[in-house]
């Protein structure tokens, strides 16, 4: 294998002209950071295990890249998954996975950090380790190998990837990444064993070292719990949060080639107060923290000067819920009126105010307006806790068509708990009703696009007990919708049921699922999120080889007291709260926005001290005035289960 950057460069000269989109593999973009390799203590490779075009649009990695490179003793470089045409040439010429900045092989870095926002990146992660010449199993790595870490929303259930990753970052990465660096520097100086490093990392708030734990299973194959193998390993791993959001990153690399999102992304708010029961992001990103309007305006201004991007994305899980959203939108329009900008404001609530907001953005492009009712009957929207009346939806759509948008995109899911065929039929009926509203205003120009995905019960949500629809059930529902949503002005998008199954297995799996992932990769599974590559049969065979039954993971309704393979990972939203919320859903009971009333999900008792240190509007949770109030809530928590660092914050 070639390990010298100059030789890698020379070989690339030969192979790049032969591959599709060679601009993915060259680096050299505006704002990339290249430091002196020999003069920098600690080297971090940040990897998005999918194509460059996707990875370059990932805000999390851009933040970490910026924060790491701000430290003089650290350099951070990037790598992405090569498409198969490039991979086969790299393998045949002996080029390992290399960083775009300096063309160093990934094996020469101290740390490799994988971003895992979704589960279908797992086989690519293993493949990239292999392409780097690094043993794919954590247990086979030696001191000379880089520390392999991974974070992102998918890792809230780390077990399926446990054997491949040395350390998981549970929660928000912007602070802990620097603590990992510090721990690594100390370890390097001391010259201790790799195991010592992992044990020392395990005491950091938000770090999970899977090799320090052993899962247990009952006679029936059901997971029953996990035992720490080291005294120092915490029984529960509490997610890391950044109590007050730091000013946004404003220095982004400007790609030479078109990427999924070529824009300035600004996170205006983290977390969501709505409590939709299917939504994992809404449960795991609590508490809600907002950035001040002035900070956002300033960040956009700097970022535009740094990048020249033509688009700004104001990102959050629910833009309408940002406290000063109207003021923000007005300020953005005013400040950047002469910059020929387009501004995206995703995730708007179904109400006419959202239309006013989009109008205030004065974006000339009125191509499509997106709303996500998620379910088509009021009954089902109550079950999922997204209560909106049909009338409210139709009124909002009328307003949208009135203000000049021709195409409304409506997002739905099928396969919700307690769903009947009537709920599915209602999707088609509602789309036709919305189209009718559009036709009254715009005639034949009106369009409705229905995006219908299939629900996957995600870990750490109130629906984690629910069984998935089977492939046959999904096909039947999709068949109905395909027939019912034909005709002028109607369009339907859907996911293949097999894609949904894979997502469900991988997100709900226990540690034994790692065998399935490994076998699937050995049989050639990579780029599972891409229809060009995804092969369902490989996965079915991999389950057989691993001696596991896929339906055990996806089609079994779990008893309410079942222990989940992810229960030792604490989002701080208590299981008791999730249980209650699930039972409420079965009765059609809803919860209001938790800014109106606190439902004691568990965030405040765990992070009472952090809340006290960050009073007022920094969090949208109620203030914790005295220790007494917090102490009452504390009874619900088992203090012994918390790691030292979280306990000290109580």
């Amino acid at each position, binding site marked *: 294998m070639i390990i010298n950057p100059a030789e890698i460069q020379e070989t690339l000269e030969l192979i*790049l002209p032969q591959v599709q989109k060679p*601009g993915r593999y*060259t680096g050299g*973009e505006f704002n990339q950071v290249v430091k002196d390799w020999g003069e920098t203590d600690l080297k971090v490779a940040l990897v998005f295990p999918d194509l460059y075009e996707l990875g370059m649009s990932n805000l999390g990695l851009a933040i970490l890249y910026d924060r790491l490179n701000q430290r003089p003793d650290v350099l951070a470089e990037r790598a992405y998954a090569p498409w198969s045409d490039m991979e086969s040439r790299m393998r045949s010429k002996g080029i390992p996975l290399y960083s775009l900045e300096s063309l160093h092989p990934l094996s020469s870095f101290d740390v490799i950090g994988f971003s895992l926002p979704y589960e279908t990146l797992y086989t690519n992660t293993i493949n990239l380790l292999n392409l780097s010449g690094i043993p794919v199993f954590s247990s086979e790595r030696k001191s000379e190998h880089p520390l392999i870490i991974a974070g992102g929303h998918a890792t809230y259930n780390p077990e399926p990837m446990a054997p491949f990753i040395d350390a998981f970052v549970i929660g928000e990465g912007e602070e802990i990444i620097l603590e990992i660096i510090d721990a690594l520097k100390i370890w390097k100086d001391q010259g201790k064993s790799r195991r010592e490093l992992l044990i020392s990392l395990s005491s950091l708030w938000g770090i999970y070292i899977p090799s320090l734990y052993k899962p247990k299973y009952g006679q029936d194959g059901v997971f029953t719990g996990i035992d720490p193998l080291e005294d120092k390993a915490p029984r529960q791993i509490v997610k890391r949060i950044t109590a007050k959001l730091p000013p946004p990153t404003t220095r982004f690399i400007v790609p030479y080639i078109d990427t999924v999102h070529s824009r300035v992304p600004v996170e205006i708010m983290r977390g969501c107060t709505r409590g939709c029961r299917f939504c994992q992001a809404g449960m795991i990103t609590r508490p809600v923290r907002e950035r001040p309007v002035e900070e956002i305006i300033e960040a956009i201004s700097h970022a535009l000067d740094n990048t020249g991007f033509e688009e700004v994305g104001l990102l959050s899980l629910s833009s309408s819920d940002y406290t000063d959203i109207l003021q923000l939108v007005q300020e953005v329009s005013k400040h950047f009126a002469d910059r020929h900008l387009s501004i995206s404001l995703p995730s708007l609530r179904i109400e006419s105010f959202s239309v006013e907001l989009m109008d205030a953005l004065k974006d000339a492009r009125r191509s499509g307006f997106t709303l996500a009712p998620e379910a088509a009957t009021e009954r089902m929207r109550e079950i999922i806790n997204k209560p909106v009346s049909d009338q409210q939806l139709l009124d909002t759509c009328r307003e949208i068509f009135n203000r000049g948008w021709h195409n409304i995109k409506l997002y739905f899911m099928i396969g919700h708990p307690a769903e009947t065929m009537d709920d599915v039929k209602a999707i088609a009926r509602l789309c036709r009703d919305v189209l009718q509203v559009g036709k009254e205003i715009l005639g034949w120009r009106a369009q409705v696009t229905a995006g219908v995905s299939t629900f996957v019960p995600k870990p750490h949500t109130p629906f984690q007990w629910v069984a998935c629809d089977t492939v046959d059930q999904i096909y039947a529902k999709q068949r109905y919708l395909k027939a019912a949503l034909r005709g002028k002005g109607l369009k339907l998008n859907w996911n293949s049921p097999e894609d949904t199954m894979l997502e469900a297995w991988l997100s709900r799996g226990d540690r034994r699922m790692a065998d399935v992932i490994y076998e699937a990769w050995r049989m050639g599974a990579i780029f599972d999120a891409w229809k060009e590559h995804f092969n369902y049969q490989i996965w079915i065979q991999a389950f057989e080889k691993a001696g596991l039954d896929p339906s055990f993971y996806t089609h079994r309704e779990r008893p309410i007291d079942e222990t989940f393979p992810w229960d030792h990972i604490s989002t701080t939203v208590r299981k008791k709260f999730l249980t209650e919320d699930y039972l409420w859903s079965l009765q059609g009971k809803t919860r209001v926005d938790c800014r109106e009333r606190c439902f004691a999900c568990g965030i405040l008792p765990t992070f009472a001290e952090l809340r006290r240190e960050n009073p007022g509007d920094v969090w949208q949770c109620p203030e914790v005035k005295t220790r007494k109030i917090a102490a009452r809530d504390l009874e619900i928590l088992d203090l012994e289960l918390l790691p030292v660092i979280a306990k000290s914050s109580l």
Partner: protein
Amino acid sequence: MSETLTRIRINFSKTASIRFTGHLDLQKTWERTFRRARLPIAYKQGFNPQARLNLALALPLGFTSQCEILDVWLEYPVSFSELESRLLPALPPGLEISRFQEVGLSEPALQTQIASAEYHISMDNQHPDVQSNCEVLLRSASIIRQWKGKSYDLRPLILELRALPEGSGGKQVIFVRLSAREGATGRPEEVASALGISPTLTRVHRIKLAFMNNEI
């Protein structure tokens, strides 16, 4: 605005990793460069506002060039010295400006003015017969080739072709001048193929773009 609209012509080179950036992406890169430089690039109004800029002749992916030309429209005049001082820090690695020039608004589009393009093709492998092969090619009445499923005659597109005396790098280099009129543009890698040289084992560098009115 229309009274102060200014059209600037920029000559630039394209090397390093940006050579793998295609025509449309290069336009986008220039637009962002002007935006970073806070220069008043003009936009065509419409459903999707488009930056007003024009590249003379698409440079195939992977080729380098010392003679690219860009026309850009600014909302009001900016001195060349200010253009230079603002663009310099905003330019991505691999793009280098060699000249600014103001051109008349009424001049026809840049791409319609180009007549021919000159290239150096350097070869990784040794081809002892390359000069005689060039002569054979030039003597042919026609060279029928396939491009994207269509057959065409390469011969009339070749205006000049010869092997250059070996340079200091030890690599053999072919000089070729190809027609570059709209609808009649020759590709240097096609010439290499016609000479029996694998295009993947060559580097192509564009050295000159010639305008119609300069033609003999």
